[in-house]
């Protein structure tokens, strides 16, 4: 919808590794200046343009501040065909591992929080590995590999979120 480059918008160096503090600073100062509340008494045309700009700022921040979304954005920006990458999928080996993890998660005894904790730290470890592999592949412009690692990140982060919340 918007052709605005998010890295340029926040004036941070393009790439997967970003300075999160700089991103947050830029996000807040942009919002502080362009939020529609700042245009309450201004002509409607300025209100409209500001609202659209703010929507871009918010979407941009949401995209760049989340690792999986940022990885996807890095790929899109490099012109990678994500639909094609998704059709190619991840390797069988990864798929099997992912299924095993999911089955173990479902079989967890909810009365024993340590079981869940152990599994989660294992998921976290796999996720970090895929993320780091993504980062170096993207840096070397090996986008086919990067796209595969990105999909692994998607699977693993979903697994992380699917974990039932801590017992109340």
């Amino acid at each position, binding site marked *: 919808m918007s052709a605005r480059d998010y890295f340029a918008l926040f004036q941070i160096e393009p790439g997967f590794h970003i300075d999160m503090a700089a991103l947050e600073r830029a996000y807040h100062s942009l919002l502080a200046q362009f939020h*529609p509340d700042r245009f309450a008494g201004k002509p*409607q*045309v300025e209100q409209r343009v500001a609202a659209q*700009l703010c929507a871009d700022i918010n979407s941009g921040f949401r995209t760049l501040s989340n690792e999986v979304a940022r990885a996807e954005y890095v790929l899109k920006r490099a012109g990678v065909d994500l639909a094609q990458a998704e059709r190619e999928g991840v390797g069988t080996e990864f798929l099997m591992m992912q299924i095993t993890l999911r089955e173990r998660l479902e079989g967890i005894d909810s009365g024993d929080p340590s079981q869940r904790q152990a599994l989660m730290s294992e998921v976290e470890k796999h996720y970090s590995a895929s993320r780091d592999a993504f980062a170096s592949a993207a840096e070397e412009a090996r986008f086919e590999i990067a796209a595969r690692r990105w999909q692994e990140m998607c699977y693993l982060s979903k697994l992380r979120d699917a974990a039932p919340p801590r017992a109340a």
Partner: protein
Amino acid sequence: MALLQISEPGEPTTAPESRQIALGIDLGTTNSLVAHFDGTDIHVLQDETGRAALPSVVYYGAEETAVGFAAEAFSGSEPANTVASAKRLLGRGREEFSDDPYLTLTPEGVLAFATAAGEKTPVEVSSAILTALKCRAERQLSGAIAGAVITVPAYFDDAQRQATRQAAALSGIKVLRLLNEPTAAAVAYGLDADSEEASTLAVYDLGGGTFDISILRMREGLFEVLATGGDSALGGDDFDRAITDFWLTELELAQPSVVQRRSLLGLARRVKEMLSAQQTASMDCHELGLSCEQLSLSRESLDNLVSGLIDRTLQACEAALADARLESVDRVVLVGGSTRMPRVREAVAACFGREPLCTLDPDQVVAMGAAKQADVLVGNRGEGEALLLDVIPLSLGLETYGGLVEKVIERNSTIPVARAQEFTTARDGQTGLVVHVLQGERERVEDCRSLARFELTGIPPMVAGAARIEVTFRVDADGILEVAAVEQLTGARSEVVVKPAFGLDEIQITEMLKASYEFATEDMTARQLAEARVEGEGLLAGLQSAIAQDGDLLSADEVQQLEAGMRALAEVLVADDPQVIREMTDDLGRASEAFAARRMDRSIQSALTGVSLDALEDNKAE
């Protein structure tokens, strides 16, 4: 909508020197309040007899209408004509229609109260309350109200927020912003200002008839609603009932008369309030024809009577914490009159492991925060003022094949926000598509709330899955949604501003405004003309200084075109036709949109390097 700054025709519009009058309004289920920040202090406005709270009750008799205490007086004699707690039904559709004997459906299928004065929708009832508060403010602040911040519960969905706005429009109130009630309470305590580091906050709101718990995270003016919970049928009234039942048991009075029961409830409330400050309390009751002259209660027995009710609120707090995935919070704020009870404070402190903030009047804290924010929004304070950002409380999505909901905007997205998603057709040769907009977290359509349904037509016949339809959701700073669908090949387009089927459309509101007593005496055309001129003059002044400042962003051709448009608008501004002024203003606005966008892009640079762009403002003010 333009601010109502009325200047003499022909006189140049200048930035007003005096403070703009802005209000904070807490439109509550049981009571409503209005507050005003005068630059130094926040004043909660009182009625002639010194009462701040206006009962949210409206009486619609055959002869007269009354609001507040005057309306409450009819609740015994004419219950059908006395509408209370209309907020519960605000923005609700026919699915909420119950067997309540006082409720009805209008011919248009809108939920309404059947009264001697006709069918009254919850929007109209809320508007009557808002009008009463607005009149109170106009009398006491002697001036036109520039606008108001109205508070809503954090869990209010799009339909309920829309309904609140409609009620305000019906009362002729310009809504500066709808603010979440817990956020307003945090603002009243100044918690928005001192939050460099992210911190978490629980707002425990125990009112007369409802209990709400909200868990927020805040950081530099950004308020994020992490979780909400509560019980819409639990509050101080239940405490009064518990005390009354206790007395009835003691007196062995199984069948009290209606009058006895109501009088006892009143005494129970007074005793409960006295027990917030003392250990025992008693009330004279010899007029009630009971077997005793006095009723008394100790704080200890009160605590025992209500401990089950308080436990229910604590369970909701635990659930909200778990929902927010938090172990504890950094601060706790108390809202609602029932939080004056020492037992409630102790229980909350124990539950969250810290002493709650309670230095401000818990009945007034929400209105106070709203007043503070209204003052900022109306422009009485500098640009450096902290910004209050809100997030949408519930995800927004679309119905897809098989009755499933595809989320387009996730809950907790900071607003304003816009997001587009591509969809396609399910059948070969399909030329139309129904866009069904839903709100909620669940996966199935029937578990979410339906907001709107509209149709995109003119899709060229293709095989299933070949069409590309981009659906864009836009949510503005108030959390109000606009949805557009565009077929990418042909550009066929359809859009809707979500106006759920609970209430009134623009035309109806205008009609009702015209019909209402308050506006009957006012010349609508003069009012519209003044509004149109303010908007038109504002655009002209803005464009003049913009061209002076950033004219280099325009080609010579573009400058000429803009200037021609400006001359045309200046010509019609002196004429007396608001319609023409409005059209020309809109035309020029559209024509200058690209220029405005380029200027903002330029200012992004300076925003990030810390250079203030207010040079432009200074030029204007000169």
